[in-house]
């Protein structure tokens, strides 16, 4: 049998040589570009390496606590630890229930916790107790995973647990005192009244049977009562978790509080504004358009200044309205206007046939919106929504100008307030940038993965 012998392809078309030839040296112009870009990269790399060797990380090393939690009292730091451990435990549960991107995140968080707990570096105040908290957060991921697996919880329960954790976490970070009894009672009636109106309205619009609406109301009031009594009366009388004034919050803690509350609050408001803008009721539509266009036409910095100066004018004399709350208020308003426009785009993308299909089945307007239109609309705009969340996260650093010290503010105050560190600006900024990058990249990654997993049947 004489066949054509198998000949290997020329060595210049495969392997590293082939790749170089195809991508870097395919033409004289490309050769020249490769040489120029290569030289510039090398110069930059050498400069960077030289700087890294002589870099002074002492501001970060000695003020890590400031970067993480600002002036939060040291003896109350266990509360932050408890919130973090609770969150990592829930990540473990979410990993067990959803897998996917939650698995990746939970593993990275557990690994990071473990590495930090065992690291040989010892920044100021990084004692055994702190190491144990980090170890605990790593362990709680595993524990949460085990619990999630054993209990085979449904996704509904995990979402409820996250929602509960959000409120409990915020309450624990803020704390309670005797004075909060009065304000909690006011909150009780405020929340209860709002709840009644909202549920009755939803029941009426959605035409749910009276029995169902009454059951919701009973549940709602029960939760409001229990939470208020436990918080104000139980915890307020003890010094278990005394109020920590928000003026002492700072660093990454403040950045996170601003971003998370902003995201959680601006999303539903954005949905309502988007629906309002597409409403056929002229007053509702007009108000939504006016709000969106007004807020979008103003820089966030201006909104921050305005809430600091203007909001107090609307409050009764003597009421002090917390600076952090005002910042959250401004960020939420700002973000919800952009969110509304993103979601409006998604709503417009849902074909009319979908609405006709739902109506022909006898679904009411509210149900059609809730089960047919919104899920498709939101899916279509996940990238835009997450993009808005990422902007919001980064924009929280603007609160520096109303006197709050988020992680960037802490960094700035460090080298402005300490002559010794004045030369270490680059290190501080690089550290802050790296922290922002890690979280924004995680958000972008999660968005991409969620999009992929929801891609099934989207066409």
């Amino acid at each position, binding site marked *: 049998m004489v066949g054509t012998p198998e000949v290997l392809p020329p060595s210049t078309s495969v392997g590293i040589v082939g790749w170089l030839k195809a991508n870097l040296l395919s033409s004289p112009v490309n050769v020249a570009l490769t040489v120029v870009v290569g030289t510039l990269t090398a110069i930059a790399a050498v400069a960077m390496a030289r700087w890294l060797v002589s870099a002074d990380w002492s501001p970060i090393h000695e003020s890590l606590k400031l970067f993480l939690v600002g002036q939060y009292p040291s003896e109350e730091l266990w509360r932050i630890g408890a919130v973090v451990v609770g969150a990592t435990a829930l990540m473990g549960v979410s990993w067990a229930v959803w897998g996917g991107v939650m698995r990746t995140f939970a593993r990275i968080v557990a690994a990071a916790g473990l590495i930090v707990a065992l690291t040989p570096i010892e920044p100021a105040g990084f004692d055994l107790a702190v190491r144990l908290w980090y170890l605990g957060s790593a362990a709680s991921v595993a524990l949460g995973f085990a619990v999630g697996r054993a209990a085979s919880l449904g996704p509904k329960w995990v979402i409820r647990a996250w929602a509960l954790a959000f409120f409990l976490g915020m309450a624990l970070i803020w704390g309670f005192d005797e004075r909060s009894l009065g304000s909690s009672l006011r909150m009780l009636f405020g929340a209860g009244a709002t709840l009644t109106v909202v549920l009755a309205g939803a029941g009426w619009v959605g035409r749910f049977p009276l029995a169902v609406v009454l059951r919701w109301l009973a549940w709602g009031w029960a939760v409001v009562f229990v939470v208020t009594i436990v918080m104000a009366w139980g915890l307020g009388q003890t010094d278990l978790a005394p109020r920590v004034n928000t003026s002492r919050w700072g660093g990454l803690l403040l950045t996170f509080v601003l971003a998370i509350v902003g995201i959680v609050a601006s999303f539903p408001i954005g949905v309502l504004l988007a629906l309002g803008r597409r409403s056929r009721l002229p007053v509702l539509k007009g108000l939504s358009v006016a709000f969106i266009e007004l807020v979008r036409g103003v820089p966030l910095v201006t909104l921050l200044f305005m809430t600091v100066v203007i909001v107090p004018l609307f409050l009764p004399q003597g009421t002090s309205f917390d600076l952090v709350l005002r910042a959250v208020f401004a960020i939420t308003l700002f973000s919800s206007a952009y969110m509304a426009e993103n979601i409006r785009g998604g709503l417009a993308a849902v074909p009319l046939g979908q609405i006709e299909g739902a109506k022909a089945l006898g679904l009411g307007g509210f149900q059609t919106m809730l089960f047919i239109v919104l899920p498709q609309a939101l899916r279509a705009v996940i990238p835009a929504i997450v993009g808005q969340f990422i902007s919001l996260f980064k924009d929280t650093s603007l609160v520096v100008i109303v006197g709050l010290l988020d992680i960037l503010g802490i960094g700035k105050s460090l080298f402005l307030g300490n002559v010794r560190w004045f030369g270490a600006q680059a290190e501080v900024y690089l550290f802050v940038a790296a922290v922002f990058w890690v979280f924004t990249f995680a958000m972008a990654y999660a968005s991409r993965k969620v999009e992929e997993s*929801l891609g099934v*049947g989207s*066409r």
Partner: protein
Amino acid sequence: MTSESSENRTESIVCRDVHKWFGTFHVLRGLSVTIYQGEVVVVFGPSGSGKSTFIRTINHLEDHQRGEIVVNGVALTHDVRNIDAVRRDVGMVFQSFNLFPHLTVIQNITLAPRRARKWSRERAEATAVELLERVHIAELADKYPAQISGGQQQRVAIARALAMQPKIMLFDEPTSALDPEMIKEVLDVMRELATSGMTMIVVTHEMGFAKEVADRMMMFDEGTIIESGTPAQIFDNPQNDRTKLFLSQIL
């Protein structure tokens, strides 16, 4: 069906002098027609003659501006409660299926019974499984609409409409968007449905189906019914010249 038996049958849909305009375009020009329970009516005619608009007024996807439409004894007015009540008893199948792409086949079918009829999940799913068997695609319950063929999608749409246990089914050109080899599977399901005694109004140009299944055929032109009768009368002895011309063009 012969005319003398119609005297003792129950009226299902009654239209009296129904008019509708799209802007200034007079699309329905005084329709008066009564459809009885269990009747299968095929509606045909040139495009733009108002046949789709006619069946879309019956479940109020289009509102009429003059005249009266009574469906199962309920008059269609602007009262939202009446409209929703009528829609729950009138199933509709669209030319473009209109399945919900973010839900699986079984979720598509169970959504309306659970949310609009407040059935338990178990009851809704049991009904859905039965219906999927009835349209011969029980194995597709957990697929998404994008993962199945057009003919299968249209059969899911039929099952979805049937899940609300309607008294009347409306079909708006159900096979027009399908490849020829899938048309048959959909028509077979519709034929079975007709045999079961369902009141049906079908807008279609599938004349073989009409000849075999219809009790009555209606020729639409310029917003009115210009001729109606049994398939035998329409095919063998059409009276109106336009009916003759139209049939000669499509047969």
